[in-house]
Protein backbone atom coordinates (compact mmCIF):
# COMPACT_ATOMS: atom_id res chain seq x y z
CA UNK A 1 0.00 0.00 0.00
CA UNK A 2 1.80 3.11 -1.24
CA UNK A 3 0.21 5.79 0.84
CA UNK A 4 1.50 8.61 2.96
CA UNK A 5 -0.06 7.94 6.30
CA UNK A 6 0.71 7.17 9.88
CA UNK A 7 -1.53 4.59 11.58
CA UNK A 8 -4.27 3.61 9.08
CA UNK A 9 -6.93 3.98 11.76
CA UNK A 10 -5.95 7.65 12.16
CA UNK A 11 -6.31 8.37 8.45
CA UNK A 12 -9.57 10.32 8.67
CA UNK A 13 -8.89 12.20 11.87
CA UNK A 14 -5.38 13.27 10.89
CA UNK A 15 -6.69 14.37 7.54
CA UNK A 16 -9.25 16.49 9.38
CA UNK A 17 -6.58 17.96 11.63
CA UNK A 18 -4.71 19.02 8.52
CA UNK A 19 -7.84 20.56 7.07
CA UNK A 20 -8.65 22.55 10.20
CA UNK A 21 -5.06 23.77 10.38
CA UNK A 22 -5.13 24.91 6.77
CA UNK A 23 -8.59 26.44 6.62
CA UNK A 24 -9.82 28.62 9.47
CA UNK A 25 -13.07 29.17 7.55
CA UNK A 26 -14.23 25.78 8.80
CA UNK A 27 -14.43 24.32 12.26
CA UNK A 28 -16.21 21.53 14.10
CA UNK A 29 -19.17 21.17 16.41
CA UNK A 30 -19.69 19.20 19.61
CA UNK A 31 -15.96 18.84 20.13
CA UNK A 32 -16.01 16.10 17.48
CA UNK A 33 -13.74 16.72 14.48
CA UNK A 34 -16.09 14.71 12.31
CA UNK A 35 -18.85 17.26 12.85
CA UNK A 36 -17.50 19.62 10.19
CA UNK A 37 -19.17 23.04 9.92
CA UNK A 38 -18.63 26.48 8.50
CA UNK A 39 -17.10 28.96 10.91
CA UNK A 40 -19.41 31.63 9.52
CA UNK A 41 -23.04 30.53 9.59
CA UNK A 42 -25.41 33.06 8.09
CA UNK A 43 -28.25 34.04 10.43
CA UNK A 44 -31.69 33.21 9.09
CA UNK A 45 -30.40 31.19 6.17
CA UNK A 46 -31.52 27.64 5.47
CA UNK A 47 -28.68 25.37 6.55
CA UNK A 48 -27.45 22.72 4.14
CA UNK A 49 -25.88 19.60 5.57
CA UNK A 50 -24.20 16.87 3.64
CA UNK A 51 -22.26 13.86 4.76
CA UNK A 52 -20.85 10.55 3.77
CA UNK A 53 -17.75 8.46 3.83
CA UNK A 54 -14.23 9.82 3.61
CA UNK A 55 -11.91 9.05 0.72
CA UNK A 56 -13.66 11.22 -1.87
CA UNK A 57 -12.06 14.64 -1.35
CA UNK A 58 -13.07 17.31 -2.08
CA UNK A 59 -16.44 15.54 -1.76
CA UNK A 60 -18.15 15.87 0.65
CA UNK A 61 -16.78 18.35 3.14
CA UNK A 62 -14.99 20.39 0.50
CA UNK A 63 -18.18 22.12 -0.51
CA UNK A 64 -18.87 23.63 2.89
CA UNK A 65 -18.31 27.34 2.48
CA UNK A 66 -19.68 30.57 1.12
CA UNK A 67 -22.72 30.14 -1.14
CA UNK A 68 -22.51 26.37 -0.82
CA UNK A 69 -23.00 24.10 2.20
CA UNK A 70 -22.99 24.74 5.93
CA UNK A 71 -21.97 21.45 7.44
CA UNK A 72 -20.89 17.90 6.78
CA UNK A 73 -20.89 14.71 8.80
CA UNK A 74 -17.59 13.04 8.07
CA UNK A 75 -17.58 9.26 8.08
CA UNK A 76 -14.74 6.79 8.06
CA UNK A 77 -13.40 5.83 4.66
CA UNK A 78 -16.43 4.84 2.56
CA UNK A 79 -18.62 4.81 5.69
CA UNK A 80 -21.49 6.95 6.84
CA UNK A 81 -21.15 9.42 9.67
CA UNK A 82 -23.28 8.47 12.67
CA UNK A 83 -26.75 9.79 13.35
CA UNK A 84 -25.40 11.48 16.47
CA UNK A 85 -22.78 13.31 14.49
CA UNK A 86 -25.28 14.39 11.87
CA UNK A 87 -27.56 15.64 14.61
CA UNK A 88 -24.77 17.74 16.12
CA UNK A 89 -24.00 19.25 12.73
CA UNK A 90 -27.69 19.90 12.21
CA UNK A 91 -28.02 21.73 15.50
CA UNK A 92 -24.96 23.85 14.79
CA UNK A 93 -25.98 24.93 11.31
CA UNK A 94 -29.67 25.52 11.98
CA UNK A 95 -30.28 29.25 11.95
CA UNK A 96 -33.98 29.03 12.52
CA UNK A 97 -34.87 28.42 8.89
CA UNK A 98 -34.47 24.66 8.92
CA UNK A 99 -31.93 22.38 7.36
CA UNK A 100 -31.69 20.62 4.02
CA UNK A 101 -30.04 17.21 4.07
CA UNK A 102 -28.34 16.73 0.74
CA UNK A 103 -26.24 13.63 0.27
CA UNK A 104 -25.72 10.59 -1.93
CA UNK A 105 -28.20 7.76 -2.23
CA UNK A 106 -26.46 5.07 -0.14
CA UNK A 107 -28.18 2.86 2.43
CA UNK A 108 -25.83 3.61 5.31
CA UNK A 109 -26.10 7.35 4.81
CA UNK A 110 -29.86 7.28 4.35
CA UNK A 111 -30.40 5.43 7.60
CA UNK A 112 -28.18 7.75 9.57
CA UNK A 113 -29.58 10.93 8.06
CA UNK A 114 -33.10 9.60 8.67
CA UNK A 115 -32.27 8.93 12.28
CA UNK A 116 -30.69 12.37 12.65
CA UNK A 117 -33.74 13.98 11.07
CA UNK A 118 -36.05 12.19 13.49
CA UNK A 119 -33.94 13.41 16.41
CA UNK A 120 -33.76 16.95 14.98
CA UNK A 121 -37.52 17.05 14.82
CA UNK A 122 -37.60 16.40 18.55
CA UNK A 123 -35.43 19.50 18.87
CA UNK A 124 -37.89 21.45 16.67
CA UNK A 125 -35.54 21.71 13.74
CA UNK A 126 -37.31 21.25 10.41
CA UNK A 127 -35.43 19.15 7.91
CA UNK A 128 -35.96 18.21 4.30
CA UNK A 129 -33.99 15.59 2.39
CA UNK A 130 -32.72 15.32 -1.16
CA UNK A 131 -30.49 12.39 -2.09
CA UNK A 132 -28.28 12.58 -5.14
CA UNK A 133 -28.84 9.70 -7.55
CA UNK A 134 -27.13 10.81 -10.71
CA UNK A 135 -25.26 7.61 -11.61
CA UNK A 136 -26.97 6.43 -14.78
CA UNK A 137 -25.06 3.15 -14.74
CA UNK A 138 -26.40 2.06 -11.39
CA UNK A 139 -29.99 1.35 -12.31
CA UNK A 140 -32.36 1.42 -15.22
CA UNK A 141 -34.76 4.16 -16.24
CA UNK A 142 -37.86 3.89 -14.08
CA UNK A 143 -35.76 2.73 -11.14
CA UNK A 144 -33.92 6.01 -10.69
CA UNK A 145 -34.60 5.94 -6.96
CA UNK A 146 -32.15 3.02 -6.74
CA UNK A 147 -29.34 4.90 -8.41
CA UNK A 148 -26.17 5.81 -6.57
CA UNK A 149 -25.14 9.40 -6.02
CA UNK A 150 -21.78 10.30 -7.50
CA UNK A 151 -19.98 13.43 -8.72
CA UNK A 152 -23.12 15.09 -10.10
CA UNK A 153 -24.15 16.03 -6.58
CA UNK A 154 -21.79 18.95 -7.11
CA UNK A 155 -24.48 20.63 -9.20
CA UNK A 156 -27.05 20.01 -6.49
CA UNK A 157 -24.72 21.59 -3.95
CA UNK A 158 -24.18 24.54 -6.22
CA UNK A 159 -27.89 25.11 -6.91
CA UNK A 160 -28.99 24.50 -3.33
CA UNK A 161 -26.18 26.63 -1.95
CA UNK A 162 -26.99 29.58 -4.17
CA UNK A 163 -30.71 29.24 -3.47
CA UNK A 164 -30.14 29.19 0.29
CA UNK A 165 -27.72 32.11 0.01
CA UNK A 166 -30.52 34.02 -1.70
CA UNK A 167 -32.46 33.45 1.55
CA UNK A 168 -35.10 31.26 -0.01
CA UNK A 169 -37.14 29.18 2.45
CA UNK A 170 -36.47 25.51 3.05
CA UNK A 171 -39.28 24.20 0.84
CA UNK A 172 -38.07 26.34 -2.04
CA UNK A 173 -34.46 25.33 -1.62
CA UNK A 174 -35.58 21.69 -1.56
CA UNK A 175 -37.75 22.15 -4.65
CA UNK A 176 -34.90 23.70 -6.63
CA UNK A 177 -32.51 21.00 -5.48
CA UNK A 178 -34.97 18.30 -6.53
CA UNK A 179 -35.19 19.93 -9.90
CA UNK A 180 -31.42 20.01 -10.29
CA UNK A 181 -31.38 16.37 -9.25
CA UNK A 182 -33.93 15.40 -11.86
CA UNK A 183 -31.84 17.10 -14.53
CA UNK A 184 -28.43 15.74 -13.58
CA UNK A 185 -26.89 12.60 -15.09
CA UNK A 186 -23.47 11.05 -14.59
CA UNK A 187 -21.54 8.25 -16.25
CA UNK A 188 -18.19 7.08 -14.94
CA UNK A 189 -15.46 4.69 -15.92
CA UNK A 190 -12.67 3.23 -13.82
CA UNK A 191 -9.26 1.89 -14.75
CA UNK A 192 -7.93 0.83 -11.37
CA UNK A 193 -8.99 0.20 -7.80
CA UNK A 194 -8.22 2.22 -4.73
CA UNK A 195 -7.04 1.00 -1.36
CA UNK A 196 -8.93 1.66 1.85
CA UNK A 197 -6.12 2.40 4.35
CA UNK A 198 -7.43 0.09 7.05
CA UNK A 199 -7.84 -2.74 4.57
CA UNK A 200 -4.51 -2.25 2.85
CA UNK A 201 -5.24 -3.92 -0.45
CA UNK A 202 -7.22 -3.03 -3.58
CA UNK A 203 -10.98 -3.54 -3.37
CA UNK A 204 -11.13 -5.33 -6.73
CA UNK A 205 -8.94 -6.52 -9.56
CA UNK A 206 -9.00 -5.16 -13.07
CA UNK A 207 -6.81 -6.25 -15.96
CA UNK A 208 -3.88 -4.14 -17.15
CA UNK A 209 -5.73 -3.24 -20.35
CA UNK A 210 -9.29 -3.20 -19.05
CA UNK A 211 -11.75 -0.49 -18.11
CA UNK A 212 -15.06 -0.78 -16.35
CA UNK A 213 -17.77 1.51 -17.62
CA UNK A 214 -20.25 2.57 -15.00
CA UNK A 215 -18.21 1.56 -11.98
CA UNK A 216 -19.19 3.22 -8.71
CA UNK A 217 -16.89 5.29 -6.56
CA UNK A 218 -16.50 2.49 -4.04
CA UNK A 219 -15.77 -0.03 -6.76
CA UNK A 220 -19.38 -1.06 -7.26
CA UNK A 221 -19.69 -2.88 -10.56
CA UNK A 222 -20.70 -1.06 -13.67
CA UNK A 223 -22.33 -1.96 -16.93
CA UNK A 224 -19.50 -3.56 -18.79
CA UNK A 225 -15.88 -4.43 -18.42
CA UNK A 226 -13.92 -4.38 -21.62
CA UNK A 227 -10.63 -3.52 -23.24
CA UNK A 228 -9.59 0.09 -22.76
CA UNK A 229 -10.67 1.98 -25.88
CA UNK A 230 -9.39 5.28 -27.33
CA UNK A 231 -10.48 8.32 -25.35
CA UNK A 232 -13.00 9.46 -27.96
CA UNK A 233 -14.66 6.06 -28.08
CA UNK A 234 -14.92 5.96 -24.28
CA UNK A 235 -16.66 9.34 -24.22
CA UNK A 236 -18.96 8.31 -27.06
CA UNK A 237 -20.04 5.19 -25.22
CA UNK A 238 -20.65 7.04 -21.98
CA UNK A 239 -22.57 9.84 -23.62
CA UNK A 240 -24.74 7.40 -25.53
CA UNK A 241 -26.17 6.35 -22.18
CA UNK A 242 -26.79 9.91 -21.08
CA UNK A 243 -28.22 11.07 -24.39
CA UNK A 244 -30.55 8.06 -24.36
CA UNK A 245 -32.39 9.28 -21.31
CA UNK A 246 -31.94 13.02 -21.12
CA UNK A 247 -33.43 14.81 -24.04
CA UNK A 248 -31.32 17.81 -25.00
CA UNK A 249 -32.85 19.91 -27.72
CA UNK A 250 -30.92 22.09 -30.11
CA UNK A 251 -30.17 25.37 -28.34
CA UNK A 252 -30.41 23.89 -24.87
CA UNK A 253 -27.73 24.73 -22.36
CA UNK A 254 -25.89 22.41 -20.03
CA UNK A 255 -23.31 22.54 -17.29
CA UNK A 256 -20.59 19.91 -17.42
CA UNK A 257 -18.40 18.41 -14.74
CA UNK A 258 -15.44 16.37 -15.97
CA UNK A 259 -14.35 14.71 -12.79
CA UNK A 260 -11.14 12.80 -12.21
CA UNK A 261 -11.42 9.89 -9.80
CA UNK A 262 -7.99 10.59 -8.32
CA UNK A 263 -5.37 8.78 -10.34
CA UNK A 264 -6.17 10.16 -13.77
CA UNK A 265 -4.09 13.18 -14.84
CA UNK A 266 -5.79 16.46 -15.67
CA UNK A 267 -4.28 16.32 -19.16
CA UNK A 268 -6.49 13.35 -19.94
CA UNK A 269 -9.62 15.06 -18.67
CA UNK A 270 -9.07 17.78 -21.24
CA UNK A 271 -8.55 15.25 -24.01
CA UNK A 272 -11.84 13.64 -22.98
CA UNK A 273 -13.58 17.00 -22.73
CA UNK A 274 -12.52 17.85 -26.25
CA UNK A 275 -14.59 14.93 -27.46
CA UNK A 276 -17.54 15.81 -25.28
CA UNK A 277 -17.49 19.28 -26.77
CA UNK A 278 -17.58 17.82 -30.26
CA UNK A 279 -20.61 15.70 -29.37
CA UNK A 280 -22.45 18.67 -27.90
CA UNK A 281 -21.59 20.80 -30.91
CA UNK A 282 -23.03 18.13 -33.17
CA UNK A 283 -26.33 18.33 -31.27
CA UNK A 284 -26.34 22.10 -31.08
CA UNK A 285 -26.22 21.99 -27.28
CA UNK A 286 -24.32 24.79 -25.60
CA UNK A 287 -21.96 24.05 -22.72
CA UNK A 288 -22.61 27.12 -20.65
CA UNK A 289 -20.48 26.13 -17.66
CA UNK A 290 -17.77 23.57 -17.31
CA UNK A 291 -15.56 22.44 -14.46
CA UNK A 292 -12.70 20.02 -14.91
CA UNK A 293 -10.65 18.48 -12.15
CA UNK A 294 -11.11 16.33 -9.10
CA UNK A 295 -14.49 16.81 -7.45
CA UNK A 296 -15.51 13.36 -6.25
CA UNK A 297 -12.61 10.95 -6.04
CA UNK A 298 -11.93 7.47 -4.80
CA UNK A 299 -8.51 8.27 -3.43
CA UNK A 300 -6.02 6.96 -6.02
CA UNK A 301 -8.51 5.27 -8.34
CA UNK A 302 -7.81 5.97 -12.01
CA UNK A 303 -10.85 6.90 -14.05
CA UNK A 304 -13.23 9.76 -14.56
CA UNK A 305 -16.86 10.67 -14.76
CA UNK A 306 -18.91 13.04 -16.87
CA UNK A 307 -21.82 14.79 -15.17
CA UNK A 308 -24.28 16.86 -17.14
CA UNK A 309 -26.81 19.23 -15.70
CA UNK A 310 -29.53 20.21 -18.14
CA UNK A 311 -29.88 23.91 -17.35
CA UNK A 312 -33.01 25.99 -17.38
CA UNK A 313 -33.57 29.66 -16.66
CA UNK A 314 -33.98 29.07 -12.98
CA UNK A 315 -30.95 26.84 -12.48
CA UNK A 316 -28.49 28.69 -14.69
CA UNK A 317 -27.93 31.76 -12.49
CA UNK A 318 -27.61 29.55 -9.41
CA UNK A 319 -24.92 27.49 -11.09
CA UNK A 320 -23.22 30.68 -12.26
CA UNK A 321 -23.17 32.25 -8.79
CA UNK A 322 -19.92 32.94 -7.04
CA UNK A 323 -18.81 30.37 -4.49
CA UNK A 324 -15.88 30.20 -2.12
CA UNK A 325 -15.00 27.19 -0.02
CA UNK A 326 -11.54 26.01 1.00
CA UNK A 327 -11.71 23.42 -1.79
CA UNK A 328 -13.78 25.10 -4.46
CA UNK A 329 -13.55 28.65 -5.70
CA UNK A 330 -15.65 30.14 -8.41
CA UNK A 331 -15.68 33.73 -9.57
CA UNK A 332 -19.03 34.71 -10.88
CA UNK A 333 -18.27 36.33 -14.20
Amino acid at each position, binding site marked *: MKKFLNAPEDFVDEMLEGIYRAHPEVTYAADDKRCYVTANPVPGKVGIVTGGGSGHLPTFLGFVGKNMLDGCGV*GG*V*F*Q*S*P*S*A*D*QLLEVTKYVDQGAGVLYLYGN*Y*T*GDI*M*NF*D*MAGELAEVDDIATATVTGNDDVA*SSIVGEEH*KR*RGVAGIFFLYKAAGAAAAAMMPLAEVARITEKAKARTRTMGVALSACI*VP*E*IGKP*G*FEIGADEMEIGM*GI*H*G*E*PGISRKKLAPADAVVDEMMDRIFAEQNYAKGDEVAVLMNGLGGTPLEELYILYRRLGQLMDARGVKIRHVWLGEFATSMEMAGFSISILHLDDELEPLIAAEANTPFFKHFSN
Partner: protein
Amino acid sequence: MKSLEPQVVTGLFPRLASRFEAERDALIALDGKVGDSDLGLTMSKAFVAARDAVAALDDPDLPTQMKVAGAAIAKAAPSTMGTLMATGFLRGSKALAEAEVLDVAGLAAFWRAYADGVAQRGKAVLGDKTVLDVLDPIACAFEAQDQAGADLEDAAQFAKQTAVEALEATRDLVAQHGKAAAFQEKSRGLQDAGGTVACILADELNAFVQENLTSV
Protein backbone atom coordinates in the same frame (compact mmCIF):
# COMPACT_ATOMS: atom_id res chain seq x y z
CA MET B 1 -37.43 -22.74 33.27
CA LYS B 2 -33.81 -22.12 32.56
CA SER B 3 -32.55 -18.60 32.07
CA LEU B 4 -29.51 -16.38 32.28
CA GLU B 5 -28.87 -13.70 34.90
CA PRO B 6 -27.98 -10.21 33.67
CA GLN B 7 -24.49 -10.50 35.26
CA VAL B 8 -23.99 -13.61 33.15
CA VAL B 9 -25.36 -12.04 29.96
CA THR B 10 -22.70 -9.31 30.08
CA GLY B 11 -20.30 -12.11 29.19
CA LEU B 12 -21.89 -12.37 25.78
CA PHE B 13 -20.30 -9.12 24.62
CA PRO B 14 -16.61 -10.04 25.00
CA ARG B 15 -17.47 -13.22 23.19
CA LEU B 16 -19.05 -11.36 20.25
CA ALA B 17 -16.12 -8.95 20.11
CA SER B 18 -13.58 -11.77 19.92
CA ARG B 19 -15.56 -13.62 17.33
CA PHE B 20 -15.96 -10.62 15.06
CA GLU B 21 -12.29 -9.79 15.42
CA ALA B 22 -11.53 -13.35 14.36
CA GLU B 23 -13.94 -13.07 11.43
CA ARG B 24 -12.55 -9.69 10.33
CA ASP B 25 -10.73 -10.84 7.23
CA ALA B 26 -13.36 -13.38 6.25
CA LEU B 27 -16.06 -10.69 6.37
CA ILE B 28 -13.86 -8.26 4.46
CA ALA B 29 -13.47 -10.87 1.76
CA LEU B 30 -17.16 -11.69 1.72
CA ASP B 31 -18.26 -8.04 1.50
CA GLY B 32 -15.57 -7.54 -1.12
CA LYS B 33 -17.32 -9.88 -3.52
CA VAL B 34 -20.39 -7.68 -4.01
CA GLY B 35 -19.69 -4.70 -1.80
CA ASP B 36 -16.99 -2.42 -0.51
CA SER B 37 -15.05 -4.79 1.77
CA ASP B 38 -15.67 -2.89 4.95
CA LEU B 39 -17.92 -5.31 6.79
CA GLY B 40 -15.08 -7.03 8.64
CA LEU B 41 -13.79 -3.69 9.86
CA THR B 42 -17.13 -2.29 10.87
CA MET B 43 -18.39 -5.37 12.67
CA SER B 44 -15.22 -5.82 14.69
CA LYS B 45 -15.25 -2.13 15.60
CA ALA B 46 -18.94 -2.33 16.41
CA PHE B 47 -18.71 -5.25 18.79
CA VAL B 48 -15.48 -4.14 20.40
CA ALA B 49 -17.22 -0.85 21.15
CA ALA B 50 -20.27 -2.70 22.48
CA ARG B 51 -18.07 -4.88 24.69
CA ASP B 52 -16.22 -1.87 26.11
CA ALA B 53 -19.37 0.13 26.67
CA VAL B 54 -21.11 -2.71 28.49
CA ALA B 55 -17.98 -3.51 30.49
CA ALA B 56 -17.97 0.06 31.76
CA LEU B 57 -21.41 -0.38 33.31
CA ASP B 58 -21.90 -1.20 36.96
CA ASP B 59 -24.09 -4.30 37.26
CA PRO B 60 -26.48 -3.36 34.45
CA ASP B 61 -29.88 -4.90 33.90
CA LEU B 62 -30.73 -6.51 30.55
CA PRO B 63 -32.38 -3.55 28.80
CA THR B 64 -29.51 -1.28 29.82
CA GLN B 65 -26.94 -3.68 28.44
CA MET B 66 -28.72 -3.90 25.12
CA LYS B 67 -29.33 -0.17 24.90
CA VAL B 68 -25.75 0.75 25.71
CA ALA B 69 -24.48 -1.84 23.26
CA GLY B 70 -26.73 -0.45 20.54
CA ALA B 71 -25.71 3.15 21.18
CA ALA B 72 -22.04 2.17 21.16
CA ILE B 73 -22.44 0.36 17.85
CA ALA B 74 -24.25 3.33 16.29
CA LYS B 75 -21.33 5.56 17.19
CA ALA B 76 -18.53 3.18 16.35
CA ALA B 77 -19.80 1.79 13.07
CA PRO B 78 -22.32 3.91 11.21
CA SER B 79 -22.15 1.74 8.09
CA THR B 80 -25.26 -0.01 6.83
CA MET B 81 -24.82 -3.08 8.97
CA GLY B 82 -23.51 -1.11 11.94
CA THR B 83 -26.56 1.10 11.91
CA LEU B 84 -28.90 -1.85 11.49
CA MET B 85 -27.26 -3.78 14.31
CA ALA B 86 -27.45 -0.70 16.49
CA THR B 87 -31.12 -0.33 15.66
CA GLY B 88 -31.63 -4.01 16.47
CA PHE B 89 -30.05 -3.77 19.89
CA LEU B 90 -31.91 -0.56 20.72
CA ARG B 91 -35.26 -2.07 19.72
CA GLY B 92 -34.38 -5.32 21.46
CA SER B 93 -33.59 -3.37 24.57
CA LYS B 94 -37.13 -1.98 24.61
CA ALA B 95 -38.56 -5.47 24.15
CA LEU B 96 -36.65 -6.57 27.23
CA ALA B 97 -37.77 -3.58 29.28
CA GLU B 98 -39.42 -5.73 31.91
CA ALA B 99 -37.14 -8.76 31.69
CA GLU B 100 -35.13 -9.54 34.81
CA VAL B 101 -33.45 -12.63 33.37
CA LEU B 102 -32.96 -13.85 29.82
CA ASP B 103 -35.19 -16.76 28.87
CA VAL B 104 -36.77 -18.14 25.73
CA ALA B 105 -39.71 -15.76 25.86
CA GLY B 106 -37.35 -12.84 26.30
CA LEU B 107 -35.21 -13.96 23.42
CA ALA B 108 -38.26 -14.34 21.22
CA ALA B 109 -39.34 -10.80 22.04
CA PHE B 110 -35.79 -9.47 21.65
CA TRP B 111 -35.23 -10.97 18.22
CA ARG B 112 -38.65 -10.05 16.95
CA ALA B 113 -38.07 -6.42 17.88
CA TYR B 114 -34.56 -6.66 16.48
CA ALA B 115 -35.71 -8.03 13.12
CA ASP B 116 -38.63 -5.64 12.81
CA GLY B 117 -36.44 -2.67 13.68
CA VAL B 118 -33.96 -3.66 11.00
CA ALA B 119 -36.75 -4.12 8.44
CA GLN B 120 -38.17 -0.74 9.22
CA ARG B 121 -34.86 1.14 9.26
CA GLY B 122 -33.55 -0.55 6.12
CA LYS B 123 -36.90 -0.55 4.30
CA ALA B 124 -36.19 -4.13 3.30
CA VAL B 125 -38.65 -6.99 3.03
CA LEU B 126 -38.05 -10.70 3.24
CA GLY B 127 -36.41 -12.06 0.14
CA ASP B 128 -34.47 -8.89 -0.59
CA LYS B 129 -31.26 -10.76 0.28
CA THR B 130 -30.36 -8.82 3.38
CA VAL B 131 -29.55 -9.50 6.98
CA LEU B 132 -33.31 -9.57 7.49
CA ASP B 133 -33.48 -12.92 5.71
CA VAL B 134 -31.54 -14.44 8.58
CA LEU B 135 -32.78 -12.26 11.42
CA ASP B 136 -36.43 -12.93 10.80
CA PRO B 137 -35.97 -16.74 10.84
CA ILE B 138 -34.03 -16.40 14.10
CA ALA B 139 -36.92 -14.47 15.60
CA CYS B 140 -39.43 -17.01 14.28
CA ALA B 141 -37.35 -19.84 15.69
CA PHE B 142 -37.35 -18.41 19.19
CA GLU B 143 -41.06 -17.59 18.94
CA ALA B 144 -41.88 -21.14 17.91
CA GLN B 145 -39.71 -22.62 20.64
CA ASP B 146 -41.29 -20.32 23.16
CA GLN B 147 -44.78 -21.42 22.04
CA ALA B 148 -43.67 -25.02 22.31
CA GLY B 149 -42.29 -24.43 25.81
CA ALA B 150 -38.81 -25.51 24.79
CA ASP B 151 -35.79 -25.28 27.04
CA LEU B 152 -33.39 -22.42 26.58
CA GLU B 153 -30.53 -24.60 25.40
CA ASP B 154 -32.72 -26.33 22.86
CA ALA B 155 -34.21 -23.08 21.66
CA ALA B 156 -30.80 -21.50 21.20
CA GLN B 157 -29.55 -24.55 19.38
CA PHE B 158 -32.62 -24.58 17.14
CA ALA B 159 -32.32 -20.86 16.40
CA LYS B 160 -28.69 -21.28 15.48
CA GLN B 161 -29.52 -24.17 13.16
CA THR B 162 -32.31 -22.13 11.62
CA ALA B 163 -29.90 -19.24 11.03
CA VAL B 164 -27.42 -21.50 9.30
CA GLU B 165 -30.10 -22.75 6.97
CA ALA B 166 -31.53 -19.30 6.39
CA LEU B 167 -28.09 -18.01 5.53
CA GLU B 168 -27.61 -20.84 3.09
CA ALA B 169 -30.96 -19.96 1.52
CA THR B 170 -29.81 -16.37 0.87
CA ARG B 171 -27.65 -17.79 -1.88
CA ASP B 172 -30.69 -18.20 -4.08
CA LEU B 173 -31.72 -14.58 -3.73
CA VAL B 174 -30.76 -11.51 -5.76
CA ALA B 175 -29.66 -8.45 -3.78
CA GLN B 176 -32.12 -5.54 -3.82
CA HIS B 177 -30.38 -3.18 -1.43
CA GLY B 178 -27.07 -1.58 -0.70
CA LYS B 179 -23.93 -1.85 -2.76
CA ALA B 180 -24.64 -5.47 -3.61
CA ALA B 181 -27.78 -4.49 -5.49
CA ALA B 182 -25.63 -3.18 -8.30
CA PHE B 183 -24.40 -6.70 -8.93
CA GLN B 184 -27.91 -7.93 -9.63
CA GLU B 185 -27.85 -11.49 -10.97
CA LYS B 186 -24.16 -11.79 -10.09
CA SER B 187 -25.11 -11.72 -6.41
CA ARG B 188 -27.03 -14.96 -6.87
CA GLY B 189 -25.11 -17.96 -5.59
CA LEU B 190 -23.30 -15.94 -2.91
CA GLN B 191 -24.36 -15.96 0.71
CA ASP B 192 -25.39 -12.52 1.93
CA ALA B 193 -22.67 -10.75 3.90
CA GLY B 194 -25.06 -9.13 6.38
CA GLY B 195 -26.87 -12.46 6.80
CA THR B 196 -23.55 -13.98 7.73
CA VAL B 197 -23.27 -11.51 10.57
CA ALA B 198 -26.73 -12.46 11.83
CA CYS B 199 -25.80 -16.11 11.64
CA ILE B 200 -22.68 -15.43 13.71
CA LEU B 201 -24.83 -13.71 16.32
CA ALA B 202 -27.10 -16.77 16.60
CA ASP B 203 -24.10 -19.07 16.69
CA GLU B 204 -22.36 -17.18 19.48
CA LEU B 205 -25.58 -16.79 21.42
CA ASN B 206 -26.09 -20.54 21.27
CA ALA B 207 -22.53 -21.36 22.30
CA PHE B 208 -22.83 -18.86 25.10
CA VAL B 209 -26.11 -20.33 26.31
CA GLN B 210 -24.75 -23.86 26.32
CA GLU B 211 -21.77 -22.79 28.41
CA ASN B 212 -23.59 -20.65 30.92
CA LEU B 213 -26.90 -22.26 31.71
CA THR B 214 -28.15 -22.04 35.25
CA SER B 215 -31.51 -23.19 36.53
CA VAL B 216 -33.95 -20.97 38.34
